[in-house]
């Protein structure tokens, strides 16, 4: 039976070329869109690692005043004054590489034969409480760290799993701008944004006397009055005497950054959705016509003893066979991506994208085949043969 159907398909191959091109292209388009969306959604699913609700941030631009002693004093004074406000539960500083700031500090080092690519950030003693960081191993910085022999660092879990998957990372000393000792591991730290890929992050202690512009991070208590922002603005202005700054709400910034990812996903999704729907409609039209055209053949099969079910099965088999050929052709192109390594992503992502694309194409084709195949099964042998 199958051989018979294959012969039939082979003899009709010329008529199927357009259909195959169309389905292959549709698969490739779906594959790229699924790849893009899955990549983003995988990143989106890993937790940020810090809170955004009730958190405000202000990157301060210090005066180009060379007197660093006065700056240190101003920074300390600012923390003090802000802690007076009852709505504020915690305040702290980090260096300019802070959540959603857009700043990055990358470095790579070779340590004991390891080549490490890491991103550096710096934060002070209270940063874990202010941002709600989750320390999973070891501890966050404490006062003793300021005078420790080795520079203390906290790393994220991704980095710990990448370099010390089987043993503990705590207490290890690595060469990273001098010798640094790992004192703690936090679980996630996606400071570039919710849709960004998690990187290996090393957080060091942000020294009070640092020349870098500080980022002020403020955690407010639940149900605070938003007009408090004006008071905070005034306090910063008065205390710092002319440092430039702008207060940002971390939650709105999170949403704002996400828009840049949602828009292309929604646009690409709807464009490909439209293309696929278009293909489905076309397919449906062509199939309905084919059934009409082949009434004679169907009538003959019925007259020779085929039951309605086998007629519609035959029809569905033919279409699924064509679809499989199209998908195989498209897979040949799609598979070049993981083979050539065009993008630096996990192979499993490609496989999932292929799987979902195939799933969509098959289900679409099946849906488009249902009505025409029922029609085919309904063909009455006598009338069909009479027409012929």
């Amino acid at each position, binding site marked *: 039976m199958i051989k018979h159907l294959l012969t039939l398909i082979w003899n009709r191959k010329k008529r199927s070329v*357009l259909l195959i091109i169309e389905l292959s292209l549709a698969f490739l388009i779906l594959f790229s869109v699924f790849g893009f969306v899955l990549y983003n959604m995988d990143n989106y699913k890993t937790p940020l690692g810090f809170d955004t609700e009730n958190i405000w941030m202000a990157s301060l*631009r210090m005066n180009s005043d060379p007197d660093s002693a006065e700056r240190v004093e101003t920074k300390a004074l600012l923390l003090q004054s802000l802690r007076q406000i009852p709505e504020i539960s915690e305040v702290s500083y980090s260096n300019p590489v802070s959540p959603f700031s857009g700043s990055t500090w990358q470095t790579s080092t070779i340590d004991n034969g390891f080549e490490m690519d890491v991103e550096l950030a710096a934060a002070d003693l209270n940063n874990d409480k202010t941002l709600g960081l989750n320390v999973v191993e070891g501890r966050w910085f404490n006062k003793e760290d300021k005078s420790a022999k080795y520079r203390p660092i906290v790393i994220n879990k991704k980095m710990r799993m990448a370099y010390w998957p089987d043993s503990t990372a705590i207490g290890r000393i690595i060469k990273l701008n001098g010798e640094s000792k790992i004192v703690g591991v936090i679980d996630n730290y996606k400071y570039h944004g919710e849709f960004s890929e998690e990187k290996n992050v090393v957080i060091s202690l942000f020294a009070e006397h640092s020349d870098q512009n500080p980022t002020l991070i403020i955690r407010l208590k639940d149900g605070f009055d938003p007009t408090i922002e004006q008071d905070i603005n005034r306090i910063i202005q008065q205390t710092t005497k002319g440092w*430039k700054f702008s207060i940002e709400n971390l939650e709105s910034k999170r949403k704002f950054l996400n828009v840049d990812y949602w828009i292309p996903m929604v646009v690409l999704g709807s464009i490909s959705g439209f293309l696929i729907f278009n293909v489905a409609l076309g397919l449906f039209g*062509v199939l309905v016509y084919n059934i009409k055209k082949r009434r004679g053949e169907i009538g003959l099969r019925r007259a020779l003893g085929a039951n309605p079910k086998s007629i519609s099965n035959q029809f569905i088999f033919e279409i699924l066979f064509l679809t499989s050929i199209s998908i195989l052709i498209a897979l040949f192109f799609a598979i070049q991506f993981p083979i050539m390594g065009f993008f630096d992503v996990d192979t499993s992502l490609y496989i999932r994208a292929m799987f979902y694309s195939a799933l969509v194409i098959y289900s679409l084709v099946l849906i488009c085949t249902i009505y025409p195949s029922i029609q085919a099964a309904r063909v009455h042998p006598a009338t069909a043969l009479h027409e*012929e």
Partner: protein
Amino acid sequence: MFKNYIKLAFKVLARRKFFTFISLFGISLTLMILMTITAFIDSELGAHPPISDIDKMAFINEVSKKRIRIDSSYTRDTTLVNGVSKIDSTLNVREVNDMTSTSSASFSVLDKNFRKLPYIENYSFFSYGQVYDVFKNNSKFALKSIYVDAAYWQVFDFPFLEGGPYSKQSIQNQEQIVIINKKTKEAYFGDLEQVLGEEIILDGKHYQVVGVVDDFGNSRPFIKSDLYLPYTHIPSDILNNPDVLGSFEAVFTLEKSSRIKGVKAEVKRIIGGIPLPADQEFNTLEIAPLTLSEAYSKSLIYNEDASKSQWYMILILSGLLGLFIFLPTINLININVTRILERSSEIGARKAFGANRTNLVGQFVFENVILTLIGGIIGLILALILLNIINSSEVLGDGKLLFQGSTFVYSFLITMLFGIVSGLIPAWRMSKIHIVNALKENVS
């Protein structure tokens, strides 16, 4: 003949509702998306106020200092010479760039070197400023600022609602003045009709409003701002900073767009003579004036040579666009082939009564063009609705997409091409059917 084609086209469309629906659906949505994309590109890169002279503009938006050192290494190969193994060593000398620092330009580097470029009609230096938090009526606005010089208002033709640009004199006098945009006016002054002479308080300082600019579609950061302040308000230590990196960018209006090559060459010559700070290890300076589309492409697809970025960008865009048009075209061809084969009896009869191949191909292509035209009109309406939705939902921030005549013309041309191509192939195939076979198909 023509009238007859039209009549038949409409009759065929009306009688084959399902095929007509499928075709129109594909055509109109394809065109809707095309027009929206064209409108987007046109809004961002097209020549409309305030960048009407965009074709003649060149920008310096990036300065790089690099450390390039000569790296020499030996490669050794063992080769057989006359049956004896010999060691063949090659000395490789290459330039290695192992440190780069890139940012906007400093005021001093622009001020000292690029005020007298040839082929230039006008130029302006400007700097992105801070974001000001402004509290008014218990709500906060974050206002973006940009520091500009007097020529800025000549290079860019901003649409003013009230007042106008400030003069060179007021800039030199460091007057406390500001030009704001319409959004800021509405947010800060509410229902106030006239705001000229009113004051805005930024970080405790009072600025007098001397002009209000209207909204425009483009969202390029060098023109899109809430506050336009005289650059002389930037502290002098920043303006005098001798480093080449800073927060300034420059725009030049060329005499003719073709002069860009000359300007690029001249800039290249000039930077050879600019000394780099001695205390740093950098030894190479890179500054290249770019057109807007080069700069835009470079920001999306990074390549050191911006013209390559632009070239890749064009390739990728046309590739995507091609794919996007290709699929609906194949779909339409597929539908048309089916639709035309269904009419084989008609083809047979027409041929028997004297229609030649040209007549038949003409008829079917014409039918398809009519169909695409209807689809084009629906697509146009849909595109206008979509643009309206995008603009009113503000998903693109305050960027407004414009719908220009040129967008319509391009889309119209694409529509026609779409119609002709997707009609021609099936028509050609059909016209090749032998009459005897066409007549055999029993559909009365």
